[in-house]
């Protein structure tokens, strides 16, 4: 395990210390809690957005705390949902009279821990609502199961719901627009190499030199299948076809694109993927309104990428374009 760390047991605490040291102009960390909040939180008169999840997905979620996006991010252990007490602290620190929206990725652990925190917050008379993100089309959707995982599409929810809150939306309105984003966002990913959870010390899965895993989760959960490595164009075609098959996108409609790196894939390769995304969408007559290429929802040092499409309408476009100023996401 080659990592720039000190002690596997303290990676999250030390990371947050380094994060706080880097961005005092944006955020502050709650002492004794793995919670990062906007420097001047709470923002009076504004619905507060609280998100978070396991660590190891940086810049998610702390990197998106700031103007126009999140009010607080709660960091669990690596790939492990944070506990309700931590989430509750975040809610209490940033909660306003306008209420708090919990933005949760759809993992059983995250949903239960945030739910418990929400219940506790309500006991303290804080108005709480929540949305659950489930953009990963690699997973079959069904009401009988846990449903789909939340992956990189999460960032679009942060951005757009954050803009709505910043614009003075009520809790109901912010929740509604977040759900609109969720309903219109689809993603799928693939991995070339696994990652190593510091406390585990060895890879969660192994892949041969010529193998890739299609549809794996951002915690190294197995995907839909393994396959021999293909070209970037073929891989892009496959991922995008799965994403498109699950959306109703008519000729002339507009989307936002995110090509997300999982950790160790060079930007060069992400742009090569984006080239093909553009080619395919153009062929289909789908207009690209805005593109995001980079690392947004990572999986430690996993190599691979995910592709996300968000179907836009006038309202979503306006909110996507609204200013945001956070350590890892800025719209000017």
């Amino acid at each position, binding site marked *: 395990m080659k990592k720039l760390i000190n002690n596997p047991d303290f990676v999250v605490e030390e990371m947050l210390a380094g994060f706080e040291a880097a961005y005092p102009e944006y955020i502050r960390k709650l002492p004794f809690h793995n919670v990062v909040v906007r420097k001047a939180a709470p923002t009076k008169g504004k619905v507060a957005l609280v998100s978070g999840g*396991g660590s190891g997905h940086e810049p998610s979620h702390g990197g998106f705390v700031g103007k126009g996006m999140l009010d607080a991010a709660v960091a*669990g*252990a*690596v*790939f*492990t*949902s*944070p*506990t*309700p*007490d*931590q989430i509750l602290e975040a809610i209490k620190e940033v909660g306003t009279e306008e209420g708090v929206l919990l933005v949760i990725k759809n*993992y*059983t*652990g995250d949903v*239960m*821990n945030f*739910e*418990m925190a929400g219940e506790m917050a309500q006991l303290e008379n804080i108005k709480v609502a929540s949305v659950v993100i489930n953009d*990963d089309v*690699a*997973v*079959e959707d069904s009401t*009988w*199961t*846990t449903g*789909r*995982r939340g992956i990189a599409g999460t960032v679009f929810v942060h951005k757009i719901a954050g803009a709505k809150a910043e614009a003075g939306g009520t809790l109901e309105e912010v929740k509604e627009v977040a759900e609109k984003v969720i309903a219109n966002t689809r993603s799928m990913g693939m991995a070339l190499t696994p990652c190593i*959870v510091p*406390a*585990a010390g060895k890879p*969660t*899965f192994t892949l041969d030199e010529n193998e890739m895993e299609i549809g794996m*989760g951002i*915690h*190294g*959960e*197995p995907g*839909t299948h393994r396959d021999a490595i293909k070209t970037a164009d073929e891989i892009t075609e496959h991922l995008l076809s799965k994403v498109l098959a699950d959306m109703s996108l008519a000729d002339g409609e507009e989307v936002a694109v995110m090509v997300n790196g999982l950790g160790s894939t060079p930007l060069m390769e992400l742009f090569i993927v984006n080239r093909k995304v553009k080619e395919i969408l153009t062929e289909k007559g789908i207009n690209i309104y805005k593109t995001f290429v980079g690392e947004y929802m990572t999986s430690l040092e996993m190599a691979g990428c995910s592709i996300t499409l968000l179907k836009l309408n006038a309202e979503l476009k306006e909110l996507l374009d609204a200013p945001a100023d956070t350590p890892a996401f800025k719209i000017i």
Partner: protein
Amino acid sequence: MLSASDVIYVLEKMGTVIAENKEYLTELDSAIGDADHGINMTKGFDAVKSKLEDIKQKNIDNIGEILKITGMTLVSTVGGAAGPLYGTAFMKAALAVMGKTEVDIRDFQNIMEGALAGVKMRGKAEISDKTMVDALEPAVNILRESKDKELNEIELLNNVRLAALQGMEYTKGIQARKGRASYLGARSIGHQDPGATSSYLLLNTIYQTVEEIKGKDINGG
């Protein structure tokens, strides 16, 4: 009859067993999950251990209180899915024996009823979803069925843990419909559920530790 200090002793043993099985549980979780179940559970029971020291220091003998503290500690240290599930289980179990300083086998049934109800309420899982419910529910069923039978307590606890064992084994053959493993669809078949395994280990620890306690006790059963 178990005293509060017996219960504390059982809880300590649970911590030991979980720690011993840290790698095993994590290994199981790496096949169909995210390779952390053993790590998370060990962290939680380590924290419980130090809380138990407090409890002993303060001479707390309210078993309900002891279980509640255990549950709250698990909730605030384990994280992931297992944290809220086991946490809720212990907290609901606590309600069943709040104020009691001794518990008998019928109290234990109430504890387990509470635990199971807590897990199901929190996780919304049913039997055959390939979760800890598959170990816990058969165990509770044994306790329910034993209600009118004449059974040695140790024998009963043995049957309880055997039912959990069977439930754990059963998870190998089925497809997950709840939790992280459910994302795998049919690919989850063939793998044993980590949470059902930890549930079995806890029930097995109860059986073994109570047997150990009773063995020392000249009055037996």
